[in-house]
């Protein structure tokens, strides 16, 4: 049974890579948006650009994974092919994990390009032992978040629109656009319950060292992963009851 589920997870992710990675919503939200964001930050302060690298990587992770999830889940919900996957002799959770893996791999591709180009271009020396776990767990967290927000909708645009609420809230409160310490107390508290804050903290520590530990950030992110993936699986099951 587990072997069947694992095979199914990989097959779905591999099929999604071939089928959906070049769909317009994946390109616009998953590739063009992070690149445009990077360019905007660079033009604003080319001298301090390296300080912004953790934030840019965090946003690339966020937008690429969530955009990919909306595409790989909602396209299939619309044309009914997600049902076809659920007809296979595997558990519903395996189908969802296959979808999450599809978003994860798309995000990994985009994040690798952004990270490698900034690290090489700016001659940065991140602590890879801290960087890699934070990036990988974050990719899973936002891919799961994308899945959670996508399984409730049928159309890609609905999921993308609804996803913008948490995405932009996190972007403005994670400390990249404005320092968290300078925010009003209420917003500081709110920023502490948003996963992107921990991704940015973990990445900052990986790039520049810092007061917070990347292990703590990774642990908190694992908590968020569970918070997102469990209800996503339940909603998907419920959809087909």
């Amino acid at each position, binding site marked *: 049974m587990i072997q069947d589920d694992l*095979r199914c997870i990989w*097959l779905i992710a591999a099929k999604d890579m071939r089928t959906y990675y070049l769909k317009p919503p994946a390109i616009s939200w998953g590739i063009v948006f992070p690149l445009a964001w990077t360019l905007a930050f660079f033009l604003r302060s080319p001298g301090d650009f390296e300080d912004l690298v953790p934030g840019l990587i965090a946003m690339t992770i966020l937008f690429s994974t969530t955009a990919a999830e909306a595409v790989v889940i909602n396209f299939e919900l619309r044309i009914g092919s997600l049902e076809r996957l659920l*007809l*296979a002799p595997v558990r519903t959770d395996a189908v969802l994990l296959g979808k999450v893996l599809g978003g994860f791999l798309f995000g990994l591709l985009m994040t690798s390009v952004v990270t490698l180009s900034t690290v090489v271009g700016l001659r940065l020396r991140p602590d890879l032992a801290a960087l890699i776990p934070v990036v990988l767990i974050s990719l899973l967290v936002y891919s799961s978040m994308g899945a959670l927000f996508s399984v409730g909708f049928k159309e890609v645009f609905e999921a993308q629109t609804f996803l913008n609420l948490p995405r932009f809230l996190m972007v403005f409160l994670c400390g990249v656009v404005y320092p968290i310490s300078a925010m009003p107390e209420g917003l500081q508290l709110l920023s502490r319950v948003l996963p992107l804050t921990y991704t940015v903290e973990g990445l900052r520590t990986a790039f520049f060292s810092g007061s917070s530990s990347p292990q703590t950030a990774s642990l908190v992110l694992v908590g968020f992963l569970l918070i997102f993936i469990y209800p996503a699986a339940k909603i998907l099951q419920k959809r087909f009851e």
Partner: protein
Amino acid sequence: MRSIEVRGLTKRFGDLVAVDGISFDVEEGEVFGLLGPNGSGKTTTIRMLVGLSRPTAGTAKVLGYDLSSGIVEAKRRIGVVPDSSNLYEELTARENLLFMAGLYGVPKADREDRAEELLRAFGLSGRGDDRFGTFSRGMKRALTIAAALIHDPHLLFLDEPTVGLDVVAARSLRSLISDLHDRGLTIVLTTHYLEEADHLCDRIAILVRGRVVGIDTPEGLKRSADEEPVIEVTFGRSAFDLWPRLSERLPGSGVFLLEGSRVRITGGDPSRVLEEVFEFSRGHNLGLRAINSLTPSLEDAFVRITGLSPTVMAKEKGGKGV
């Protein structure tokens, strides 16, 4: 041996009872049809039997596996063709088949051969490397059925197999289904095409508003309507606006407009029916062309059992494949 045993199967969506305590068996090797209009519960029944929807009450065994505990095992042995051809448009025909083979655990070494075999069997061997999105409706339907057979299932569910197809494609698909039946595959199909059910099915369950209102062989169902005379009348011009008046004149009979100028009358005293038809035709200057006494068709049996007009079924999905 029974391939499917259904007992008191029920599905409720809030206050709506989509399937209302139905019971039936499907024998190994037979083509079993679920016939009924839209909303009769055919698709919901199939969805429960293939594990896409959980029953609210009742039990069902598919290939000996209880739906509540052994659905994953049952899924290994069943193929499902949904009512829409929903393979992946971006993948080629061969890639779609290989993907499905992988999902169903067909050994890697056998996948290519199995895909080629099915492409050949379904007349698509020259199109294996073409994207599914470029196929015609008929070819899409054929490949969707091929995909459902990739793991060599013991039982095949076909949901409205010919809906939306042109007459030629629908005929070719029906012949394909007959071939699968000849090879011993057990098939459960839903359809709202009465002639399709008559032509393909060994037995038919008629569903209306979530209940099984009749279940028998097509011949058995027709025999049940044999007690009533069936008369078909052809007028010289359209009786479209007038036929309800004929219906009023024949209170003990069922009067159905088949086309603008053709009317079918079931039941009632034949001599009185004929008298009324002559008088009606003269009174409205319809120019009587022909009167035929018919052997009851499945359509007549359907009308008798359900009280519904067969034209309702034909119009519902707007399909051409009769």
